[in-house]
């Protein structure tokens, strides 16, 4: 039927309503820019090391974001911090998502696993995350990899919960029964029907987990559990905190904080916008 055939595909509809959301678009652009900064950090600023003569200088033409108490350029730190912060954020969230996806889908599909896995997820969700992260970070020693793993370790339950609820909505769908009637094995159904079905929510999860991971990284680094060998925004703040300059040398605090804010804000807005765009009900 020509009339019906001309309807937009869900993806196109999502995209078209997403495009009309200025906040969502702006967020996407900001994220893209940050990603570029992270990738091309070496082209933007030299790796901040050594020390400079101009210590604790406020922002100026020479040092856009000022210098810290040993004279390093804060701009360079923030640029290179983008790299580590985003890397920690993304790798933690990817890890969390792999675990969460596995557990969420298994819980939803294999009924016998649902109760134990559901309980496991619920229990994990009720653990005090930050204190435990502190514990585990102390346990594993500070490094970027540790941070990513620790954060992932405590972020997957959230993902699993979302994935499970989405998958639970798919499992009773007649098309899953249809695949079973047709003879599809469990693995087939999980692969062909469940996983593609939960991908959209996982997309949102990636974004949200990333932003949470960035905040967690900042928190742990701030508490002195970060990687001393690389610059992340949390590390910059930690050094500012250690030097007692949070309030006085405001530029060492402000710019990394802004970077965190910007990243977290744009990821959150992006996921909100994406969800809004996907939820066609809200605009019909």
């Amino acid at each position, binding site marked *: 039927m020509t009339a019906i055939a001309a309807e937009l595909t869900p993806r196109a509809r999502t995209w078209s309503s997403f495009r009309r959301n200025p906040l969502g678009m702006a967020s996407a652009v900001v994220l893209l820019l940050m990603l570029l900064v992270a990738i091309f950090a070496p082209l933007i600023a030299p790796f901040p*090391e*050594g*020390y400079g003569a101009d*210590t*604790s200088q406020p922002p100026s033409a020479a040092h856009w974001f000022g210098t810290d*108490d*040993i*004279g390093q350029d804060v701009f360079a730190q923030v640029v290179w911090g983008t790299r580590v912060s985003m890397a920690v954020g993304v790798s933690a969230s990817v890890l969390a998502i792999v675990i969460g996806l596995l557990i969420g889908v298994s819980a939803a599909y294999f009924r016998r696993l649902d109760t134990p896995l559901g309980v496991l997820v619920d229990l994990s969700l009720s653990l005090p995350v930050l204190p435990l992260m502190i514990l585990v*970070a*102390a346990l594993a*020693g*500070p490094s970027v990899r540790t941070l990513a793993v620790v954060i992932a370790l405590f972020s997957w339950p959230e993902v699993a919960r979302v994935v499970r609820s989405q998958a639970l909505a798919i499992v009773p769908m007649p098309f899953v029964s249809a695949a079973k009637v047709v003879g599809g094995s469990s693995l087939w159904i999980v692969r062909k029907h469940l996983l593609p079905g939960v991908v959209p929510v996982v997309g949102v999860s990636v974004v949200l987990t990333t932003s949470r991971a960035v905040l967690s990284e900042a928190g742990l680094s701030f508490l*002195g*559990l970060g990687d*001393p*060998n690389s610059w992340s925004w949390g590390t910059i703040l930690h*050094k500012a*905190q*250690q*030097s*007692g*300059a*949070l*309030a*006085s*040398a405001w530029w060492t605090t402000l710019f990394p904080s802004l970077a965190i804010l910007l990243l977290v804000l744009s990821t959150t807005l992006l996921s909100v916008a994406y969800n809004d765009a996907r939820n066609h009900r809200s605009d019909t």
Partner: protein
Amino acid sequence: PSVPGQSGSPSSAEQGAPASADRLTIGTTADVVNYNPLVGNSRTDSWVTSLMYPHLMQMDEAGKRTPYLATEWSYAEDGKSATVKLRDDMKWSDGKPVSADDVVFAVTAVQKEKFGVVAGLITALDEAEAVSPTEVRFKLSRPDGTFLDNVGFWLPIVPKHVFEKAPSVQKFANDKDWVSAGAYKLTKVERGQRYIMDRVDDFGPGQPTVKQVVFRVFPDVNTEVLALRNGEIDMIGNVLPPATAAELKNDAQIKLQEIPSLGWAHLQYNTKRKPLDDVRVRQALAHAVDYEAIRNIALKGFAKSSNSSVLTPTLPDYADPSSKEYAFDPEQSKKLLAEAGQTNLKLGMIYDQADPNIARWAPMVRDAAKKAGITIELQGLERNTYLDKTTKRDFDIYAGSWAVMDNPPANLGLAFKSGGFINYAQVADPKLDDLIDKAQRALTVEEARTPIQEAARIIHDQVYDNVLYVETFNIAYSAKWTGFKPMPSELLSILNPLSLASAKPAG
């Protein structure tokens, strides 16, 4: 001082309603962990308990022992015993006099249960006895010229009649109903918030001016600084980070007191690991550190050179003026490495990430070494891991600092004699051992000086220790106060009992 209603208008505080002698509020970053003075070893522990429990001796600005509970002390001719005379006008807060029995009890408890800082310092002690209520005699197994200084300064005297009731002195929490004899008594504790100490009116050595001393807990130094600027606290007990000190220098409301350190910051090379067992490699490393830059940039100039000697200028009795600092000379360094047949030297360096100063200069050490072709990989560790690795001697390079090294013969013994407790570099040098032994047996400074300087020279030449600097600590307090009596080290600073007892509002 925080008075209700007043915190709402700090301007009144700023415009300097003069401080009253009613209360002195001191910021600290941590809680008291243990009120038992024989056990507690954190800074806040020491500050609070040192106001409560007398020691036999105090220390002056040059590290020399001065009387406190003890009035005089001396060794016997053969060095096998020592006598201490006590003042008779100090009382425990429950009215009982502070007597020789208490001193004997404290030292014996430590000796028997072997705990705390003091245990390692009194290995020469055979037995302590109260000769009279005001005189104690220590019998020693060998002559030890460091014994009295150590026991006198480090051992807190606790009330025997209270502590002896506990099955184990070490396990005695002492967390309430305190019986103390210091200038102030602890009257109220609000954990996580504050410790309130009231003046003892009939304190033997002289009544303090300030009625009440309050320690307030601020886990974050930034907040603490804000509170000082806001007039909510009168003093920051802990040492200011150099950058903050530089910043606060320009603040008219705040005064900074410079305090010399009794310890030093240093790098130690694990002499049991190849290729660090080769003195040329260690020397190469010593030439690959930019000492000036560390002192000027990382410490903002709040540090003195010790001329690469373990005898620091803080203790002029021992310091050796002929010692020369290793020059920052990457070429020399390369040459030495070439001689030792080392190329592409790669070493790890552990340090405590929570130590703001070291966290600052560790990268500078790495970057300077790079110029000499040495790769140093930083291992900034969480504190407990760092301690663990240190005690296990599991490192190439150790970066750290010693807080109080007030008695070179005793301290160098611990730090450089074979098997010494804090001999992190695992030095095993018979000549050095002999020299230190000799210095320890000496009963006077004059006698000890020559062998100890000789030992220090060996440590310098062999780079058993690479001393970077002696920090100048900055303690900040409100300009509304005056009369503090500074003492060396961050532990005593202007927070020592005598200093607080003599503090008073300015003007």
